């Protein structure tokens, strides 16, 4: 392998949903944690199940199974905590996965025009062609309008 091709390799985390594997750029991944209690409360955003509490941080759980494999991920083994970019800040989201995750280095083939918005590219690993996910398109969030002003991540309670 030449130096030039080595430099094109990027780190990805492979995750499993049902029978399929997908990839996320490793720099988006914060933690892989065992499933914990989901706190549910009324809301109207599709694909958000509720929140988990992780070391004092409240993290939304986004079930992306419907989009990626056509059904919800019920038998979950881990939550992949990933960093999602919003307009002016980054926040963690929890993605339920059904199997072990794996860190690999691979070369990214950018997505084409015909690919879905949640696909940022493709990689080849052990003879398998794997979708690299665009978390910002895959998980819900506000429409990117300049008028959106997100609240700070933490605010002290008012007396």
């Amino acid at each position: 392998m030449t130096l030039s091709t080595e430099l094109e390799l990027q780190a990805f985390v492979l995750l499993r949903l049902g029978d399929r594997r997908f990839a996320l750029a490793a720099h988006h991944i914060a933690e892989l944690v065992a499933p914990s209690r989901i706190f549910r409360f009324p809301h109207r955003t599709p694909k958000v199940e509720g929140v988990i509490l992780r070391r004092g941080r409240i993290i939304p759980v986004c079930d992306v199974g419907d989009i990626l494999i056509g059904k919800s991920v019920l038998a979950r083994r881990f939550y992949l905590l990933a960093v999602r970019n919003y307009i002016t800040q980054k926040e963690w989201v929890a993605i339920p996965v059904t199997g072990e995750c794996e860190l690999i280095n691979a070369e990214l083939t950018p997505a084409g025009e015909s690919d879905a918005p949640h696909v940022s590219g493709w990689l080849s690993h052990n003879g398998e062609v794997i979708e690299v996910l665009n978390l910002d398109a895959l998980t819900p969030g506000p429409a990117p309008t300049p008028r959106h002003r997100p609240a700070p991540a933490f605010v002290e309670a008012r007396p």
Partner: protein
Amino acid sequence: MSSAPTKASSSARSEQIILFRVAGQLFAISSASVQEVRSVDSLAGSSAEISAPTLKKVRHTVQRGDKALFVVNGAAHFGLPQTPGGLVFVLRRTRTALLVDGIEKMTSMTRLQSLPSAFCREERAWYRGLTALDQTVIPVVSPEGFLTPEELALLDSVTAAQESSEGGTQIPQ
């Protein structure tokens, strides 16, 4: 990647909150936002029916002083199963009274985390944020989030139409 949140310092200000239930779901509201807590029975004499077919969460108004407040059914507002409701919170600085099942307890919170941005629909108006109490996450409701300006305008027009045609009707005891 952002760093983990720092713990609230012991000097952090706290906010008194009321934990209440609607259809089994626990919510919190700042006690400073609640002007009055009344039983449904005690308000029956000062309430009137209102019929806005497109806004079924409001079925009654209640007269408090010179103001008519719209009674929002908490279960209908949040899309929860209907329950009879036992208490009404008269919310300060709003034209809303909130029908809830009951109060769980009063307590205080020292930290309110903003609603994660993944929640991007009406709930952004419903909640001030989330708080963690005893390893449980509880949504903290926004008193202004129960009726939008458009809904208030609709209710005002319905009230005016009813008053001009027949006047208010009392809730049957």
